[in-house]
């Protein structure tokens, strides 16, 4: 779980969080949204960062590129009972990546 391809060692959750936060900060830095302050594990992707569906798609593309993985089961993060979730937090993203990388 959360293994680096070369060494077989897990990527620490804190390191994953830093990468995710960096991606989200980079994505939203010049958006006209009300959210201010730093990205935290409790930050909500939809409610706080005002992501639309297309933004979630772009976010996933960034994550796939960053972690060099095209096969991550993002439906397990984004869907419940075959329906798309209304929102999810940064911590849930980190937990998902830690489990599946």
């Amino acid at each position, binding site marked *: 779980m959360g293994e680096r391809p070369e060494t077989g060692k897990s990527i620490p959750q804190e390191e994953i969080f830093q990468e995710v936060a960096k991606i989200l900060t980079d994505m939203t830095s010049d958006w006209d949204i009300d959210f201010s302050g730093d990205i935290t594990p409790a930050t909500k992707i939809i409610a706080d960062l005002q992501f639309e*569906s297309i933004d979630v798609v*772009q976010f*996933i593309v960034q994550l796939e590129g960053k972690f060099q993985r095209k096969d991550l089961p993002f439906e397990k993060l984004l*869907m419940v009972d075959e329906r798309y979730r209304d929102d999810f937090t940064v911590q849930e993203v980190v937990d998902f990546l830690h489990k599946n990388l």
Partner: protein
Amino acid sequence: MRKTVLIGLDGATFTILDPLMAAGHMPFLKSYLAGAFRAKLLSTPNPLTPPAWVSMITGRSPGNHGIYDFIRAENRDDTIYFTLYNSSDIKCETIWSLASRQGHKVVHLNFPMMAPPQPLNGYVIPSMVQWRHLKKNIYPKILYDTMATIPGFQADHWALTYWEANEAMRHRALNPDEDEGKAWVTKNLNRDKQWFIILKYLMEKDPADLTAIVFDGVDKLLHPYWRLLDPETSGDLSDGENRMREQVLDYFHQLDSFIRDIVHLAGDEAHVIMASDHGFGPARYVFHVNVLLESWGYLGWREVDHAEVKKHNHEWSFASLDWSKTSAYAGTPSSNGIRIRVPEESYEAFRARLMQQLLDYRDPVSGEQIVTRVTPREEAFPGPAMSLAPDLTLTLSDHSFVSVINEEPIVLHRPEINGTHRPEGIFILGGPGVKSGEHPEPYSILDIAPTMLFCLGLPIPKEFEGKITAAAWEPSYLQAHRVGIDNTSGTFCTPESGDSPFSEEEQKAIWAHLQSLGYVE
């Protein structure tokens, strides 16, 4: 180095362009064609923008490059996960990469499936990227900052995503309000103008060896307004429709001026290719294929709250299905594809039965055969990426796209004809050594990439599936500019199975080269 320009005209067809030229609406294109070579251009088996443009710029068919639709659907446990295709899904090398790593400067603007951009010697701005994601999707990044300084450039007139375009065209089809129609034409006039402003800037400030752009307003306007331009219907329009037609003609007037200016900027020594990814024609009905599949017991619908679905707006494009009751379904309209979910041991018999049922189906009102062809994936999309393709690809009698939503009747005859894709687009070639005339047979969209490489003076990779359009050239020119074949596997494809077409030494050399360019870590 020999310069080449590719002007992509999404959805262009001679059915519309010839009458426009004859009536004086595209005077430059008319005069250019008098000295150029032209032919129809056969699209991919499903004539759709993403697979077609990617085939054009890779020289490979969808079964090799792996792009079948705007939307990528993956079987995940007992559900289907939908997302959008992007450039990392393309399993073959593009002509941009080929030319760039052989020392050519390349500019490609507004080509689908090019986000995120792959680094090259030149400039990239992909198609269908929302404005707030463009900064991360323009290459090099400095171009993003530079764009704001280009005289006349207005960013808010420009970026349009797949969802926005899809929704706008659905809205136009359902609500033919004249003011809204004018607004849509104006939007596309402005968008194409912004693309032209960027291209002109780059051609003047930092000319490239291979310059390419797609103007997609043709497609965006032919979908809702085919009837206003089709010679078979445009003579019988109301006053309001005639006013709307004049608006749409303004688009083609502007397009003609852009083509003129691009050709002049390229210079007399450049080769110019104009090509479309597919053609266009009338759509006469809406075929609710999933309702038909339900009637045959192959599909179950999921209860949905439409207000909830609208929050996730991409779900408008997908069928809302009960997977536990579904053995065959059409996932997206644009794929015209049916996916089968039965155990392997019953697959062949199930598929054969379904194919015959679809071909046997008749419109209950007109008695017309609706599905005229059903192509299994191994026939439509052979190649290492075949497993990603729909099991069956449908061709309808009016070549329209299926509807995947739960609405009756199964065949709804449209009160107003819309435009839909057709297999035959356009190919125009001009420049030194080119014959003038018309080729009687259509070329394949796979022929564009080898033709572009020939124009550039580069060898053709042996993996390319098309051929140079030899009939377009004077024999003396072909004699003086020999076609080279690259037998060293200059392109690569990422196979599904993990089996590589390359030897271990070839793989190491290719990956080392990609690392040196920064494509891989």
